[in-house]
Structures are given as structure tokens and as C-alpha cells.
């Protein structure tokens, strides 16, 4: 395998994990809750492409729409589900003063609920679906053949990160979310509406999840009701190694994790490849032993006396 091909593959998986980690990090910022159901939002977005039925052969539903509508449709579905989980599952608990661990457990409950619903409707058998067929081809750049879908994943990720960062810096609502992520109670004492800031964070995380749904399915073409679980774990680990509570940290943490696992996949001797994840997460433990506060936290962003 060519080194450029390898780097593109690594950056592509890294981009996907970065988007997942950022989605989890946004919600964690305002709510101090790790939302394990985030992976299932991604799964919902993927399943929304096909007709809900127990039949083995998947007939496209939203997946058959022309592509601007397809993207808009999946964005709407996933964002609405994200907002619904906030409104009906997490808000009531938060109002009763539930702490982070209670919320974490409830996010597992939401995760299993979504998975069970999809299992019930679609059965547990993986289905295949094809969207954006043009992306499956390889392109040749300076004599190196790389997957078009990987290039698109990287570009879409960069655009989403730029857009989100502009939104968080320029708009009033974005500034309020950043303030709430730093000191939620203080932000409320200045008039920031808690429910709105949290709903907005969930909405943004839904948009990111929808993007991952589309990029994931475009690359693999496979639907599975547990497909969100490894993604949620990767995103969570990404936020931890990046430094909990820091959004740039989440992006870099997720990216590093994805890139490292792709590089190990290629560079490990063939007989060790099945144990790739053991190496990846072993590396994570080593990182956390030396930098328990996370890799990309610069220390004194806090206050001075």
C-alpha cells in the first residue's frame, strides 16, 4: 500500500471519529453528560435511508431521493430524534437534579431503546444500501489511487468544523453555548436559558451525527442495528484523550484515535492485525497515564487570581 493512500485512509477514519467526538463533546460541554446514544443517532440516520420493514432486501426510501433532498431529509430525521431524546428523556432527569452518572446510565437506556426499536422493525440482519454511487470510485492523483469517498469525508469534515466554529464564535447562541460549557450556572445567572442552550447543543450534535451516517453508509454500504456502538465508544474515547470539556480537544482526540487505528491496521504484522483494537486502546491507556487531563488541554485556560 502506498504511503499517500495510507495517510488518506487514516485521515478519513480520523475525520469520521472527530465528528463523532465533537458531537459527544458538544453535549458534554453544556450538560456534563456523556451521551452514549449519540452512536444510535448515527444508526437511525443510516436506517432512515431505507423503507422500514422486516424484509431482508432493503428498498431505499430517503435513500432514493435526489441528493440535496436526501441530505436534508437525513439531517432532519437525526436532528429531530436528537431533540426528542433531550426533551423526553434527559430534560426531566436534569430538572430533578440528576447528576452526571445518572444521566450517563439514562443515555445507555436511550441507546438500547433505539437499538431495540430498530431491531424490532428491521430485524437484526444487516442490510445493504447504496447511496452516492459515484463516490465508490477511485480517483488517481499524481499516480496514486485513492477512494473518492475518503477525500469527500475529509473535505466535508473540514467544512463542518469551519462552519461550526464560525457559528460558535460569531452567533449569540454559539457564544452562549461556549459560556454554558465553561460555567453553566453562571451563564444562567446572566440570563442564558438553560433549556434552549441544551436543546441547541443536542440539535448541533444531531447535525454532526447525520453527517457521519451519510459518510459511513457511503463508504461501507452496510446497515446494522449495532453499528453506532463502536462509533460512540470511539467518540467517547476521543473526547477523553482530547481532554473532556474542550471542543478542539475532542476533534483532535477523535482524529488521532481514528488515524492511529488505521495506521496500526496497515503497519502491524499480519498475524497481529486482529488484535489491532487491543493496541489502539492500549495506546490510549498509555496516553492517559502520562496526560490524564487529555492530550490537547493547554492547562491554564482558567482564571487567575
Amino acid at each position: 500500500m502506498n504511503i499517500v493512500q495510507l495517510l488518506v485512509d487514516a485521515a478519513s477514519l480520523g475525520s469520521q471519529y472527530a465528528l463523532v467526538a465533537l458531537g459527544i463533546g458538544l453535549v458534554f460541554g453544556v450538560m456534563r453528560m456523556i451521551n452514549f446514544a449519540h452512536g444510535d443517532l448515527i444508526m437511525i440516520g443510516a436506517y432512515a435511508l431505507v423503507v422500514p420493514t422486516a424484509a431482508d432486501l432493503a428498498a431505499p426510501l430517503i435513500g432514493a431521493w435526489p441528493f440535496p433532498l436526501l441530505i436534508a431529509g437525513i439531517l432532519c430525521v437525526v436532528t429531530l430524534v436528537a431533540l426528542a431524546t433531550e426533551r423526553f428523556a434527559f430534560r426531566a432527569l436534569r430538572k430533578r437534579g440528576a447528576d452526571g452518572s445518572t444521566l450517563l446510565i439514562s443515555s445507555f437506556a436511550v441507546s438500547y431503546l433505539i437499538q431495540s426499536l430498530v431491531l424490532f422493525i428491521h430485524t437484526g440482519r444487516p442490510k445493504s444500501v447504496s447511496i452516492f454511487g459515484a463516490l465508490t470510485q477511485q480517483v488517481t492523483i499524481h499516480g496514486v489511487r485513492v477512494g473518492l469517498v475518503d477525500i469527500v469525508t475529509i473535505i466535508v469534515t473540514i467544512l463542518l468544523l469551519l462552519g461550526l466554529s464560525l457559528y460558535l464564535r460569531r452567533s449569540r447562541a454559539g457564544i452562549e453555548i461556549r459560556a454554558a460549557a465553561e460555567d453553566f450556572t453562571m451563564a444562567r445567572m446572566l440570563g442564558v436559558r438553560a433549556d434552549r442552550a441544551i436543546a441547541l447543543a443536542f440539535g448541533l450534535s444531531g447535525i454532526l451525527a447525520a453527517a457521519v451516517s451519510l459518510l459511513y453508509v457511503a463508504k461501507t454500504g452496510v446497515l446494522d442495528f449495532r453499528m453506532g456502538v463502536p462509533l460512540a465508544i470511539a467518540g467517547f474515547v476521543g473526547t477523553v484523550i482530547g481532554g473532556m470539556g474542550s471542543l478542539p480537544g475532542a476533534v483532535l482526540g477523535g482524529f488521532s484515535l481514528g488515524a492511529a487505528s488505521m495506521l496500526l491496521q496497515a503497519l502491524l504484522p499480519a498475524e497481529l492485525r486482529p488484535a489491532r483494537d487491543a493496541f489502539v486502546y492500549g495506546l490510549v491507556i498509555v496516553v492517559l497515564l502520562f496526560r490524564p487531563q487529555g492530550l490537547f488541554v493547554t492547562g491554564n485556560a482558567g482564571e487567575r487570581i
Partner: protein
Amino acid sequence: MLLSVDSLQVRYGKAPAIHELSLCVSAGEIVCLVGPNGAGKSTCMLAIAGVVEPAHGDIQFEGRSIRGLPPETIARAGISLVPEGRRIFGRLTVRENLVVASGAQGGVGQAKAQFDRVLALFPVLQERYNGYAGQLSGGEQQQLAIARALICKPKLLLVDEPSLGLAPLFADRVFQTLRSLREDGTTLLVVEQSARRALALADRTYLLRSGRLILDGPSNVLAADPEFEHAYFGGARRP
């Protein structure tokens, strides 16, 4: 009466932090709460701001009960808090710190005028306008915390220990600013550990100790009262 607190009781777990505290603030006044550590002064401020839930009693603002309302609703009703420890957003710029607080106020044009007015009060914030708030010195952060609370044009400004951690010269300046705010028509309720500073600033002063009201009255009367110092440091009030 702008603010009246009636038989307020606050508990942390089972331990009462405030027993049966009643106090009031009229529009245009500066009122101080003084007392040693653990007197319940900060707790009282947080209860008014809606952050800690009272076990008993009522808090009325402009004649309506605000007890049990969420902090953002209380802020939007016109009560702003400069909290203990300042709690500025260090990862936001000075400007962004002010923007967060300006949401409680209507009208964009109005907000712009208030930004100008507040920045005129604190010229150093104008200089550091687009710098990160976490990079400011302690005194500058205290000014930012006050400026932030003023951005939404509060009817009542709560200030918790404004001189804590500041060099005496800075503390004097902060108190000077508080005095000038009253001249602009803001009503203030200030928590202060130093009785001397409190009595010099306030029209009326309440002395708290161990969650109870010990003495209260006009500051000039208390300043002349030989019992005041005695009561502050823990003696019983003589009959």
C-alpha cells in the same frame, strides 16, 4: 420595596446555612451584608439569584415572589449577580463575556448604548476587548465581572465579596466604582467581610453570624455603636 427577604431558611443537606433571615432593600439604596466566614452571606445571595433553593421563607422582588424561579428568569427580571470568585468565562473574550450577559436585555440598539456606557466605566476592558478573559489580571477580572453584571441594566445588583483577593488599592477602586453606580440609579446589595469597608459604603448594614441576623441599622449608627465590633467577633448582644 425593591427586594424583601422574609424568614428565609436555607439548608445544605441537614445543616441549616441560614436561619430565619429577613431583610429588605429599597430602590436607590446601597445595603451591605457583613459578617465573618460561614455567616451565610454568600448563601443568601445565591438564594436570591435562584441558584440555591430555600427550605422556608419567601423572596419578593418588586412585590412578586421569585422563590423557586430558575436563575435565568430571575436575571431577566432585573437581578444581576457579581459572584464570589468572579466566575468570568476565561475561554471567552472580554467582548464575548459581555455578549453572554446582554441576552437578558431587549433591543439591539439599546444593547449597543449600554455596552458603550459600561465600557466607559471600565476603560481597561475597552483596551483588552478582544483578548481572552482568562488572561486578565485579578483586578481586571473583577471589573469584567461587574461590567458583565451591568450589561443587562439590572434594577438590583448583587455583589459578593468584591475585594476578595485584590490588593487594597484595587479594592478601593472597586468600591469607588460601586459608589458611582448608585449615582447612576442602580440599587446594590453587597456582601463584604471587612466591616470597615462595608460601613463606609452602605446606607444600611446587616450583620450576620452563623446564619443568623445579629444586628442591623443605618451604617452611620452602627459605625458609632461600640457593640458592633463586639457582635461581629462573636459576643452576645447585651440586653
